[in-house]
């Protein structure tokens, strides 16, 4: 007790200099601490850094808030089925999905652009997201387009195209001047658009090929790394265009009718790059003579309205990869993963909205 008293009297005498020093130390620490949090959180010193919020704000500016929907590829339907591997993929990847046998698949057909209620057009870029083995421990997720190359080779290019492509409420079309300025600033996109325009046209989702666009590395059991781009080639015969100005869902309705006739199938082609082929530019195709491995058949058996528990809830993050597939140096991959995560988080906390496509409302 005496000991305590002694201490108290020492404190009671309170060395003024000392307390000031203590307060200064606390103040200095708090400045550094709060400064670090503000810097790390991007509130100060971030300049014109492209963050996930830049993209989310860009989507919101171009399309409105789209409550409850993905901030890009907002319009879609859920599908499910399986992948039958023939074992050929083992040559370049040790992933379980390429062992002979069947892997369950959840997927989602969608339209590019963030407007979840946009009207289908013959020219709409079509997307297919797939999650192999979802929700198991070893998954392969991919978000693909029916385009032979991606229009952008950098996150900045994607963002600039998003901003330039905002549909004007007056004309129903993007501002041609903004688009011309964008293409002048992004010759890689202008070149990619030519390749895209030259690709064969398809009538709908069921007869479209879907391409992974970004390059990835496949790693086999021996540890050999091979640059790969993958494509799903339709086994359906080309259909007649069902384009209709009176049916804003004609692409999806055609898909749903196709499913009523039976499962839809695609062949998985793994195209191998050589040491000469770049892996960092999604706007540039590889030479047409590159060898492809036919790794098996994707069979989609069911189509459903987006709902809790189906593909609505899946983030088709292109970097959810199994051992045997690895990300490449493509600068789009990490930003895609980051922005997809932001969109997923955002809509997980938003009220649910009614999707544009309701499978049960499609007449036979």
């Amino acid at each position, binding site marked *: 007790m005496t000991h305590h008293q002694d201490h108290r009297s020492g404190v009671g005498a309170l060395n003024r200099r000392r307390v000031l020093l203590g307060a200064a130390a606390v103040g200095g620490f708090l400045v550094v601490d709060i400064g670090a949090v503000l810097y790390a959180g991007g509130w100060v010193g971030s300049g014109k850094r492209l963050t*996930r919020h830049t993209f989310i704000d860009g989507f919101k500016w171009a399309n409105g808030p789209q409550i409850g929907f993905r901030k890009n590829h907002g319009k879609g339907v859920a599908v499910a089925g399986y992948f039958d591997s023939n074992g050929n993929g083992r040559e370049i990847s040790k992933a379980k999905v390429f062992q002979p046998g069947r892997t369950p698949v959840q997927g989602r057909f969608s339209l590019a652009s963030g407007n979840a209620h946009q009207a289908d057009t013959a020219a709409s870029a079509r997307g297919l997201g797939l999650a192999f083995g979802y929700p198991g421990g070893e998954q392969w997720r991919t978000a693909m387009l029916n385009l032979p190359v991606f229009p952008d080779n950098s996150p900045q290019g994607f963002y600039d195209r998003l901003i330039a492509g905002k549909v004007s409420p007056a004309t129903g079309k993007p501002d041609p001047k903004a688009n011309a300025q964008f293409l002048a600033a992004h010759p890689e996109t202008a070149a990619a658009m030519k390749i895209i325009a030259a690709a064969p046209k398809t009538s709908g989702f069921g007869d479209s090929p879907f391409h992974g666009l970004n390059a990835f590395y496949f790693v086999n059991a021996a540890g050999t790394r091979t640059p790969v781009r993958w494509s799903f080639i339709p086994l359906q015969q080309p259909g007649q265009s069902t384009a209709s100005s009176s049916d804003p869902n004609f692409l999806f309705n055609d898909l749903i009718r196709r499913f009523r006739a039976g499962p839809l199938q695609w062949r998985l082609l793994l195209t191998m790059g050589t040491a000469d082929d770049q892996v960092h530019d999604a706007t540039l195709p590889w030479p047409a003579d590159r060898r492809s491995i036919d790794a098996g058949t994707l069979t989609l058996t069911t189509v459903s309205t987006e709902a809790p528990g189906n593909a609505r809830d899946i983030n088709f993050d292109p970097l959810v990869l199994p*051992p045997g597939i690895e990300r490449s140096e493509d600068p789009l991959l990490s930003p895609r993963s*980051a922005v997809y995560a932001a969109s997923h988080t955002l809509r997980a906390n938003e009220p649910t909205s009614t999707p544009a496509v309701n499978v049960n409302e499609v007449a036979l």
Partner: protein
Amino acid sequence: VTTEIADVAPTVAPPRFTTLSRILHWLTAVAIFSALFIGFVMVNSTGNYATLLVVHKALGVTILIIVVVRIANRVTHPAPALPGSVHRLERWAIAGSELSLYVLMLAQPLIGWAMVSAAGTPVVVFGLHLPPIAPVNLTVFGVLRESHTVLAYLLVIVIAAHISAVLMHAIGLGDGMLRRMTFRLPGR
């Protein structure tokens, strides 16, 4: 040493935490500071996001392991007596702050793990697949993801209060509070 500060400092060295406790404390400090800083940077970066996420998850699991060991160690090895300069009310505050730190340090990595599980995404850390610990559900994911952010800010606040209090005691009152957790330097 004849500075004024040294003159007022207690001449009898205060009791320290055990060596293991002190090692665990500073390991946690470094790991939590890194995980928080990387976490805040990560959610604002695009090009480095994927790499930072791998590091962040590894730190999270490391923290979880250290904290479990720390809790076992804390239960079996009580803290040394506080300096006499600590008042009774402050003792309650210290106990409360220590308890909230332990709760937050344990909860935060578990919520991170659960939120990845709820997204239906494989939980891969150090190349190892961890089992899911939450049902795959978008709403559950949303709640856990928000909680992860809230707990990150709570950790920042509670850690800032913890460090401020120790600095005020060690420097402002010179009661040797910090020495309970430091290592004896050669020559001291």
